[in-house]
């Protein structure tokens, strides 16, 4: 379903721009990936003994699938709050470049920083990809309202999926429960592989997968952090070395 042309009367009110943003949730296959991911997160939270309200609050407040998985799996495997917080903080650095690259698309000379706070909270990988795809088709002065609609729409999809995954994990036979838990690594591996833009990204993914099982033998409590920083730095080193050639 295409968006109306830039000069259409559909864009005259911010409320209608918001509604178009919400409707755009249905226009992308990434919504389906997000749904599968959050089914998995709901199921993971159930099987690691978190309450439904807690995992719903984490979906609305954290609003970053990878961070939620890291949080739930590190806390669930007995890490301390500080260890979990460090691992999540490092994983969340990637949000910074996303925010930096997408906000200039929404600013107008009249935009105040506080107008962008909610939009900034909604920025995570899916919203970022969709903003870059859709915002050029939205008049600049309606982009914030449009993004609010898109963000709230995606958030509702994720809250429903979290609830459904949690409920399914509690009530399904183990085989289907296992299938829902397998959605998380599959969806993350494939969506990360799809987002790999340069050699350093591909190397980081491959080395990260390979190093974790080795580092986990050390039982440090921050295994993910150690394997992630080493694998990422090696991948960056190879990139740097090749650029110099």
């Amino acid at each position, binding site marked *: 379903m295409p968006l109306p042309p830039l000069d259409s009367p559909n864009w005259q009110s911010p409320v209608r721009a918001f509604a178009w943003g919400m409707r755009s949730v249905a226009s992308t296959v990434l919504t389906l990936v997000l749904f599968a991911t959050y089914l998995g997160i709901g199921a993971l939270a159930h099987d690691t003994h978190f309450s439904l309200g807690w995992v719903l609050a984490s979906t609305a407040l954290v609003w970053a699938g990878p961070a939620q998985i890291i*949080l739930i799996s590190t806390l669930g495997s007995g890490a301390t709050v500080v260890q979990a917080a460090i691992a999540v903080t490092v994983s969340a650095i990637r*949000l910074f470049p996303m925010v930096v690259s997408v906000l200039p698309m929404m600013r107008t000379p009249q935009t105040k920083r506080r107008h962008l706070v909610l939009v900034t909270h909604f920025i995570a990988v899916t919203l970022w990809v969709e903003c870059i795809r859709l915002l050029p088709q939205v008049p600049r002065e309606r982009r914030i309202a449009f993004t609010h609609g898109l963000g709230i729409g995606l958030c509702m999809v994720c809250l429903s999926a979290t609830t459904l995954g949690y409920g399914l994990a509690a009530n399904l036979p183990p085989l289907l429960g296992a299938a829902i838990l397998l959605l998380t690594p599959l969806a993350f591996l494939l969506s990360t592989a799809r987002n790999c833009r340069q050699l350093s990204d591909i190397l980081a993914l491959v080395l990260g997968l390979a190093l974790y099982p080795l580092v986990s033998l050390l039982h440090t409590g921050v295994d993910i952090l150690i394997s*992630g920083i080493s694998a990422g730095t090696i991948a960056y080193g190879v990139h740097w070395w090749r650029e110099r050639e």
Partner: protein
Amino acid sequence: MSDFIGDWHALLVLVIAGFLPNEVWRMLGLWFGGGVDEGSELLVWVRAVATAILAGVIAQILVLPPGALASVPDWLRYGAVAAGFAAFMLTRRSIFVGVVGGELVMLGGKWWLG
């Protein structure tokens, strides 16, 4: 209500270890975003580390599986993900086909094992 959320302690953990670590980077982007070049070397390194951490999380779920996933034998978990990845590559990077393919291999394998 307390059953729904858990105790106040669980909520505090969520804010300290989940909400703040993410929100800090978003708000830093909002405050200082003007001055960072999107193609800078620092961001290449940040992206590589973030990708590798995510890869570590994927590996953790496969190597030390939570809950019901632990009932699936190791070789079948790895095989299913490898099959999903192959399906993804063969269909010019269709995430949907990859996820469905991996799931079918896992379910088929469990059914075959009985």
